């Protein structure tokens, strides 16, 4: 890729980061993340993969990754509105009306923070089985139902909401996607406390919520295709995670170098390294393919499967390396990472669901 872009980025960061730190210090609260996204957006770095007309730089995925890696080197907190920048924004760009695309600059500059209303308590991995209903009433849809596991749900101003608009159609067919202002009356958001005690997700309840018909994204009952666009971008993100995962393992090894690990522990770390290096290779290959304009194939599902299980094992190894310190309060971050990692094989497609997809769609095996 062009080194000029990265040079420009470094020039920007060298200037912006110290100034930002002066004001915010090492804080990584939501407000700081919002402020940092605004700074990055002003420099044109918040969504370098977006089209130029939407405020991006139209860079391919692997260059976006390089930008993220350089940025990561500065140790700044993550941008606040990642779901909007990574998943919802590109979906709006692909499916939105000109009016709907007006959300894009506001997503960039943090005026709007988006979340995705996909999972439901009764459906879980069975996305097509969703039951939140939207009934047409004049120029509005009236929405009733419940969403769960909504990331950033407590912070979001808007939601890409999947609803059932035709209860009689086969499961995938009667779904539509709505763009919902979270301040609409009838919406209630409750935090979900996770097993590590934190609350990164929310439950969202809809009671007679009126959403204008103009906020329909794509066609009525064609929401499944819209969803697939969003999930495709979500899974592309997994390829980026895969390359980051290798760095995480390398860092862990560097931290334990010369620490007198037992040979068995050394071997365990090397096994993690091999696993991470290989999944990162697959991630890089996927990003190059995407960059070359090819449709990524099964690699994304493979990466999700392998990365999530490898990440879970890595978290267990971190706990093992901390030993009794991890469980007796002396190394709480290892314990917290271990607990958090339990979600890796559940969120964004459980391992069994990913294996179903691979065996049916790639290998062509019959449905059970």
């Amino acid at each position, binding site marked *: 890729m062009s080194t000029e872009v990265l040079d420009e980025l470094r020039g920007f960061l060298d200037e912006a980061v110290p100034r930002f730190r002066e004001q915010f210090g090492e804080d990584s609260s939501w407000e700081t993340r919002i402020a940092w996204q605004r700074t990055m957006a002003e420099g044109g770095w918040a969504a370098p993969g977006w089209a130029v007309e939407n405020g991006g730089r139209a860079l391919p995925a692997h260059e976006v990754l390089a930008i993220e890696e350089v940025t990561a080197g500065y140790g700044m907190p993550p941008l606040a509105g990642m779901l909007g920048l990574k998943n919802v924004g590109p979906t709006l760009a692909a499916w939105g009306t000109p009016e709907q695309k007006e959300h894009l600059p506001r997503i960039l500059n943090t005026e709007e923070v988006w979340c995705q209303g996909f999972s439901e308590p009764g459906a879980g991995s069975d996305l097509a089985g969703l039951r939140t209903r939207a009934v047409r009433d004049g120029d509005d849809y009236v929405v009733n139902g419940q969403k769960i*596991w909504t990331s950033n749900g407590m912070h979001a101003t808007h939601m890409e909401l999947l609803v059932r608009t035709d209860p009689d159609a086969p499961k995938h067919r009667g779904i539509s996607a709505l763009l919902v202002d979270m301040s609409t009356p009838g919406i209630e958001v409750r935090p979900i*406390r996770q*097993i590590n005690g934190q609350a990164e997700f929310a439950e969202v309840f809809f009671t007679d919520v009126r959403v204008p018909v103009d906020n329909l994204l794509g066609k009525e009952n064609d929401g499944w295709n819209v969803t697939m666009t969003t999930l495709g971008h979500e899974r592309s993100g997994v390829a980026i995670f895969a390359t980051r995962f290798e760095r995480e393992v390398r860092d862990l090894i560097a931290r334990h170098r010369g620490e007198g690990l037992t040979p068995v522990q050394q071997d365990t770390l090397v096994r993690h390294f091999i696993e991470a290096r290989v999944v990162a290779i697959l991630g890089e290959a996927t990003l190059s393919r995407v960059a070359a304009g090819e449709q990524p194939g099964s690699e994304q599902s493979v990466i999700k499967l392998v990365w999530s299980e490898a990440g879970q094992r890595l978290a267990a190894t971190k706990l093992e390396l901390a030993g009794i310190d991890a*469980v*007796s309060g002396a190394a*709480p971050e290892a314990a917290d990472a271990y*607990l958090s990692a*339990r979600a890796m094989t*559940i969120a964004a497609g459980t391992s069994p669901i990913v294996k179903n997809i691979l065996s049916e769609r790639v290998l062509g095996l019959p449905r*059970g």
Partner: protein
Amino acid sequence: MTTTTVAEREDLRAAIRGFLADRLPESTVRELIDTETGVDARSWTQLAGELGLAGLLVPEEHGGQGLSTVELGIALQESGRALLGAPFLGSAVLATWALVVSGDDAAATGLLPGLADGSTVAALGIDDDPQSPVRAVPDGDGWRLTGAKRHVVDVAAADTFLVTAEVDGGVGLFVLPAAGDGVDVEQTASLDLTRRLGRVRLADVPAQRVGTEFTAGLASVRELGAFACAAEQAGIAGRCLEIAVEYARTREQFGKPIGSFQAIKHQLAEHLARVEQMRAAVTAAAAELAASPGSAREIVSVVKAYCGDAGTTVAEGLIDTLGGIGFTWEHVAHLYLRRMKTLAYLFGSPSEHRARLAADLGLTG
């Protein structure tokens, strides 16, 4: 030592299970998490009195039941299953056993009856803080102790501490009141929310020595501690499997109970295999410890290593089966996982016990 029949042991199991389900249901366990000691003192008195749990290992002449590791294994499986917060492991198992094996008749006579009826709660400190190991200095008829102990089980509820310290190149066991001057107790934030570990700091604290040379006694306590952890883990694993199976039978996805999907079925079958092996291994270790504690070292390491790894897999598997709901604070799954994983590291982790086995089997060096 009193021996029991199979039927009596099943009665014991049923009695403990019934008591705990009644007095310490999950709602109570959760309430206790936020209390100062983590222990419901009344329930512990009842467990001690009605079930005789506190005196299970105490010889009959000192007011206990004089039972063996066979019955203890059953009680521990139940305490794991119920996430018991009472100081059963710390006081009735570890501290009590330290006194029993100390060979000190006076101390036994003085302390064991109180431990057996639950009116005394003791905690045992054997892991030195490497920054300040506990040192004992003679002082008239007694001793004075200075230093810190870590990973003291059930530290918060104890009124009496038993701690070890090096004496003349060997090990001495000492007893002191928990509330005395110079004693500082710190509850550390353990991964396990249902059992308090902690740190005990002693600054020139008067103490009485218990028995004489305690090296063999300490080894015996460590073996019992490792066994006790494994036994609790077997109980936890069994309960995790039950919850997972119940959920798989009733929760529907894609229009069918998820328990009809082979992926779930086979995972649960593997967990069943683990649970059955954990139980069998604990039973075998209990029998060996009761019959011939001197030769139980191998089986103790086998059972501690096996239950630590297999038990973790079963508890993690519960969350996998439950999916999102298993990742919530409100579901009991994480309480089991936290306790399971903590037990894996107390009294030697699986990898430490494997290293011990490698040495004992003559593979190293």
